[in-house]
Every structure is written in C-alpha cells, then in structure tokens.
C-alpha cells in the first residue's frame, strides 16, 4: 500500500526558531511536493522536487527552503519561523508522469508563537 509519512502531526515553535518538516515516501516516486493549506486559499505550492538534489520554487517559496538528498525523503525548512507561517503543511509524491496521481501525507499543523 502506498504511503507518505510526515514526521509530526502537530508542532508548536517559537518565532525565530529553525523548523524542519520531514516527509518520506515508500513508492520510489520521482516527484515530491510541499504545499501550504490555509482556509479559503486552498493548496499553495511552496517547493517541488523532480529528482534527488533537484528543486523548483513554487508560488510561495519566501521564508522556506528544501532539501532532497535521498529519493524517498523531502525536507521543508523554515529558516526563522514567523507567526504568519502558522499553517497546515502537506507533502505529496508522484511518479514521473504528468497524469500520475499525487499521494499526500496526513499533514503537519504548525503553530508559531
């Protein structure tokens, strides 16, 4: 069975802290995504990785960076967390085809105080 796991379901951090969100997929997928989900705004793409060590900025990359050292793992980094980064973060993976389904993790609800 397909699985995308995220390191935490809930996370509370302080302003200015460095935050790491981890995502692991067990499907040998080429593509991985990080989204931010906010009420009324839907899903907004932060970063996309189409292969190991390869990444592309999405619609809202400011304040975030990513790392993909291994195919199965895609990390989202908040260099200095701010309160406006309080949100639900969703990771997804997809095989290499455009028509392929995205598989999503359960999400991490991050609160920055």
């Amino acid at each position: 069975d397909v699985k995308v796991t995220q390191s935490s379901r809930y996370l509370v951090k302080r302003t200015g802290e460095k935050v790491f969100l981890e995502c692991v997929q067990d499907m040998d997928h080429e593509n991985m995504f990080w989204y931010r989900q906010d009420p009324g705004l839907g899903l907004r793409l932060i970063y996309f990785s189409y292969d190991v060590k390869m990444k592309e900025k999405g619609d809202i990359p400011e304040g975030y960076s990513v790392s993909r050292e291994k195919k199965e793992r895609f990390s989202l980094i908040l260099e200095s967390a701010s309160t406006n980064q309080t949100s639900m973060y969703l990771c997804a993976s997809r095989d290499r085809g455009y028509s392929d389904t995205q598989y999503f993790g359960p999400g991490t609800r991050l609160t920055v105080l």
Partner: protein
Amino acid sequence: AQSVTQLDSQVPVFEEAPVELRCNYSSSVSVYLFWYVQYPNQGLQLLLKYLSGSTLVKGINGFEAEFNKSQTSFHLRKPSVHISDTAEYFCAVIPASGGSYIPTFGRGTSLIVHP
C-alpha cells in the same frame, strides 16, 4: 498558465440528497483533470481523474464527474450523499503537453452533509 475555479466554497446538503460540486478551468492546451477529497484531519486522496476517452469518469465512493470541453468544466456529482461524505473537495488541473508539470488546485469546496 492554467487556472481552476471552484464556484462554491461551501455546499450544505441533507443526507441521501444528490449533490454537484462545480469546477471550471482555463488553459491554452489540453489538460488532465483530477478531483481529490480531504476528510477531516487527513491528507488528500484521489477520487477520480480524467485523462482521455469517455467524458464521464467514475470514481470511488459512488462519485462521478463529467468533462465538458466546450464549457471547460469538470463537475463532480453523487446521486445520494452520506454523512461520511462530509469533507473538503479539491479540483486540480495539469497541462497534458508542454507547459508546467505542476498541478494547479482550486480553493476547495467544503461539502457538509446534514442528517
């Protein structure tokens, strides 16, 4: 570039009633279309997708969607909803050729099924 509009942010309905969730898109090229569902406190999962062929697509849990190229729509329907269908529904589009290989999502429609 493509865009997706989900015309209703919230759709309340009584149990066993039919429901339609509307999705319109714009794109200069042919597209693949997807509906995803997000149950409370979960990630998204695929309901159905249109790639080519028959314009009526059947998905999981009794849902179906119809691709209408002339109206650039991909509305989701279910003839009789259940309480367990209460969830957030997202329409997504991706170009079938060239362009970006990144899906564009609509803002979501919250389906609320009342007993």
